[in-house]
């Protein structure tokens, strides 16, 4: 349909405008990860003395975490926005137009990605001002933005799927603690190879979030680590593909009224 790009743009614009008009939805995803960054970088400074620790700067090591936390917030915001549209009947209004379901999904995700870029640029700026130098240089920053886009797309689509299945903003928000468990049981605070052989190391190794963090981290502290990037991109792409497919299916089900 010829108007689809226009529709995607307007729906994405609506998503951005809505978020910007709710200051809590902007400040939270920006401030909370930066606050945790400050706390962690102060508390975990001694880690840099561990043999084999990949960086002399704990800030550079920890800087990967806000990106994934920010993406988690994006999941919540995208999901709760769509759930609200379902609850208020706005989705029914949209579905009475010739709009395609894919335009709605892409529009919502487009808005999420736009806000994700704002988050990413803020995190990069804060890191740079605090003295972090990207080991992969400017090209690495660009790759990071591409990677982060994919991560936000994946998490955002998970939020859409949850919203479409439950139709409830509260249910979507209920996922937040669960996602945070994934974040904390990961290589967020310490490299996996420096963890002692306990259930935690096994869990972190099995946890896809570890590889997303390590993908970002590799660009900041290592340079060009093909394995870390391949795993990060691969996992993000797989999660995105599955989540988008599930969202599209759920939207179709919901619009069919079944």
């Amino acid at each position: 349909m010829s108007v689809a790009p226009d529709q995607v743009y307007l729906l994405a614009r609506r998503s951005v405008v809505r978020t910007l008009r709710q200051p809590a939805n902007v400040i939270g995803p920006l401030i909370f990860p930066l606050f945790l960054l400050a706390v962690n970088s102060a508390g975990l400074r001694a880690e840099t003395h561990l043999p084999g620790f990949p960086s002399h700067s704990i800030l550079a090591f920890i800087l990967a975490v806000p990106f994934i936390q920010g993406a988690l917030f994006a999941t919540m915001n995208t999901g709760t926005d769509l759930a609200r549209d379902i609850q208020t009947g706005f989705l029914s209004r949209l579905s009475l137009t010739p709009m395609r379901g894919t335009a709605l999904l892409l529009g919502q995700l487009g808005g999420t990605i736009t806000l994700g870029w704002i988050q990413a640029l803020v995190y990069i700026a804060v890191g740079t001002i605090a003295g972090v130098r990207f080991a992969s240089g400017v090209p690495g920053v660009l790759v990071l933005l591409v990677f982060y886009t994919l991560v936000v797309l994946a998490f955002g689509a998970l939020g859409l799927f949850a919203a479409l299945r439950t139709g409830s903003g509260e249910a979507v928000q209920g996922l937040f603690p669960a996602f945070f468990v994934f974040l904390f049981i990961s290589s967020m605070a310490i490299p996996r190879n420096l963890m002692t052989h306990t259930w935690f190391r096994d869990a972190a190794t099995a946890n896809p979030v570890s590889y997303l963090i390590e993908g970002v981290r590799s660009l900041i502290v290592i340079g060009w680590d093909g394995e870390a990037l391949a795993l990060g991109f691969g996992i993000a792409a797989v999660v995105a593909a599955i989540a988008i497919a599930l969202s599209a299916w759920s939207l179709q089900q919901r619009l069919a009224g079944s």
Partner: protein
Amino acid sequence: MSDNSIEARELVREFKKGPRAVDGIDLQVEPGEIYGFLGPNGAGKSTTVLMLTTLLPPTSGTARVGGYDVVKEGSEVRKAIGAALQEAALDPLLTGREHLRLQASLQALPREERVPRANELLERVGLTDAADRRVKGYSGGMKRRLDLALALVHRPRILFLDEPTTGLDIQSRTALWDEVRRLAKDEGVTVFLTTQYLEEADVLADRVGIIDHGRIVAEGTPGALKAEIGRPTVEAVPVDPGDADRAAAILARFGEPCASAHGVGVRLRTGQADLAEIVRALDREGLKVEQLQLHQPSLDDVFLAKTGRSLEGADDDEQDGRVGALAMESA
């Protein structure tokens, strides 16, 4: 069938673990007609609208809207219709103008038409001054008017309005009625309007379908439906309750006695013109009454006659349905 019509045959909708919300509805709405779908809460009005607007698949039966099957040709139906559903489905964080621009785009209006069309509709529904305010600051009436404007963006041939005036003050309600009448009269739009307000169905609809428990129990013009029930009645309440028999005897000259909650009643033989004669007869006999009321058959009476109970929420509207109520203070 003409392109602006609505037709349903044996339309049924069942919900899991629930009753049949719609239980075999047949209806035919002619092009340019305002069809009032009247019934109490939970009667099946909104479910019917959801099916006719393609938002809910029927369990069985068929429906064609604008000449298209609602199940097999849903996208064609959606192009032909506009709908303002029961809850004004608006985004509280967007302005009225932003809603209209988004809707115009999603309805695929040519880019150069979007702004003029939005301005035209804002003007028509009286929201020009509030166009750039966020919807969360709108009153209920403003939201309803914006909802109507959004439904009209793409100039639909058929308009579905699901309880469009519920919760509105009388001014907003009247303004919306005027716009609906104008759409039907000037633009030939077919209007399918659900309501639980007797007055709304009475004054606005060309024809009324009364629905109860998912079934249409009566259908016709408001006048024909009321005429079907019978002639007007007069109720007199004597000042002295001991005069009830005398009052009944006087009233009996004008028709057959009928039940009255507070005094004596008569179903008029000829029509409401007899009211003046009744006043004169009471006066001649020196019988003082504290209240004398002419009761025209209302759609509530139709509902009562067809279902054996009064329409929910009819109390408020009952006053409006009575024409020529007359109270006489004792002389």
